[in-house]
């Protein structure tokens, strides 16, 4: 259990016309909530996609929960999950049908009990029989979270978990994630633009810019290092700094 939840070494993703990830290295210890921060095109989603096995890197090593993700991803996929408000569940199936199918894909035995339990926890019982395409943004986010928690993942990857949510729902989701991590000891790695969210949830932050990690540490340490009052100011400082940032590993 001393292995970090995520270990990335010299990761590169090169496309014919651009370099999306440019030799990044980082680790995420087990049981923490960490964030990849950066502007649009910084390489956050690309990095998450590689960690999920959806995208093959051009070079580098990726180890997730002690397994080489590039060679043995099927050993580790049952132990992790993913949620993004930008990837909807199929619209025409009901919420229950969607969850049932994913529960089967994860090989869960007590599927119906698990769905009922998550529906109760995430307050989605009222619309379990509704087509997923007819939910509000807040409802969709909670359903996506239910799908992501079906297999009680040891590693949960989240892409902008509270994007397009009203402040109340966003706060509720953040509270739920904090509770989940505290209860299960899971590791959460998120990509986010929401600085206050990251300050609240995360103990580790990696600042990305043009495919590189340009700084990292706890939110408090970053704020102190840049002499700012909050993480948003640090983010703006880094985003507007021309090319002087030295990548860190």
């Amino acid at each position: 259990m001393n292995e970090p939840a995520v270990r990335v070494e010299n990761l590169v993703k090169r496309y014919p016309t651009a370099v999306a990830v440019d030799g990044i290295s980082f680790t995420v210890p087990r049981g923490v909530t960490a964030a990849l921060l950066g502007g649009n095109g910084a390489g956050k989603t690309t990095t998450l996609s590689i960690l999920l096995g959806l995208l093959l890197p051009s070079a580098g090593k990726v180890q997730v929960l002690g397994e080489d993700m590039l060679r043995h991803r099927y050993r580790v996929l049952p132990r992790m999950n993913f949620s993004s408000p930008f990837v909807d569940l199929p619209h025409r199936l009901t919420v229950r049908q969607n969850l049932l199918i994913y529960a089967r894909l994860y090989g869960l035995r007590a599927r119906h009990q698990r769905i009922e339990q998550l529906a109760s926890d995430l307050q989605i019982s009222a619309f379990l029989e509704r087509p997923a395409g007819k939910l509000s943004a807040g409802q969709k986010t909670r359903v996506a979270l239910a799908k992501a928690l079906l297999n009680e993942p040891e590693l949960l990857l989240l892409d902008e978990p509270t994007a397009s949510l009203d402040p109340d729902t966003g706060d509720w989701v953040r509270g739920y994630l904090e509770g989940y991590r505290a209860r299960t000891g899971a590791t959460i790695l998120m990509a986010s633009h929401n600085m206050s969210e990251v300050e609240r949830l995360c103990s580790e932050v990696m600042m990305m810019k043009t495919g590189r990690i340009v700084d990292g540490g706890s939110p408090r340490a970053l704020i102190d290092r840049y002499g700012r009052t909050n993480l948003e100011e640090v983010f703006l400082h880094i985003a507007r700094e021309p090319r002087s940032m030295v990548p860190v590993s």
Partner: protein
Amino acid sequence: MRIMRSEFRLSLGRVWAMLLRYLYLLRSSWPRTLELLYWPTLQMLIWGFMSQFLYVNSSYVFRAFGVLLAAVMLWDVLFRGQLGLSMSFLEEMWARNLGHLFVTPLRPYEWVLSLLSMSMIRVLLGTVPAALLAIPLYHYSIFAIGLPLIAFFAALLMMGWALGLAICGLILRQGMGAEGLAWTVVFTLAPISCVYYPVSTLPSWLQHAAWVLPSTYVFEGMRTVLFSGVFRADYLISAVALDIVYLVLGATAFFLSFHNARRRGALLQMGE
């Protein structure tokens, strides 16, 4: 919480999960279910009445009454086999669902098995009612062909799967711009499959092309059974052998395209 953690083992549970998804989709839209039944039945009606007309106006086609109807129904097995596979595949593209599916332990070959299973269900749903309806309408039963019918059915279904896999591979590689191929490619093979006429009707140079299609052997074999009551095992063996070659090629194209999509990051982006 017990979870299967094996690396390469095929899980019928995951195949069933995907099949269940396509069955839910089919059930969620009655127009789509109706569409499954509509074309085969309509084709059977048109060709059935045409056959009845020819029955009283031509001594040759008198014997061909069943040949035309059987050809119509068997052609639908090939067409529906390919389309049934491609449609389930396209459902995932339209729903932009690959990003969800392939962060689960689902293997690409398990997905393919579910697509093949759904294709067979769609074929049976489309063709069996039409075949049954022909019995009271025209006093003609395609089931009278007997065991060879099962062999013809299997050979055409396999060819439909091979085509479907190749087309899905092309869509994975080229994106949704290639979607139209799912609806049209099979029709380009109809003239040289010799569905309604013998291969000898074709010019000799085109006959060479016809004999590389499994469907040509099936329709020739079907006519032999219906005209002379002889089952040509050599035709069936040739059809199945070609099917195996095309299935291997189709599956290879599909899996290479899938791997390529992972390299390009298309699994998250693929959609309308």
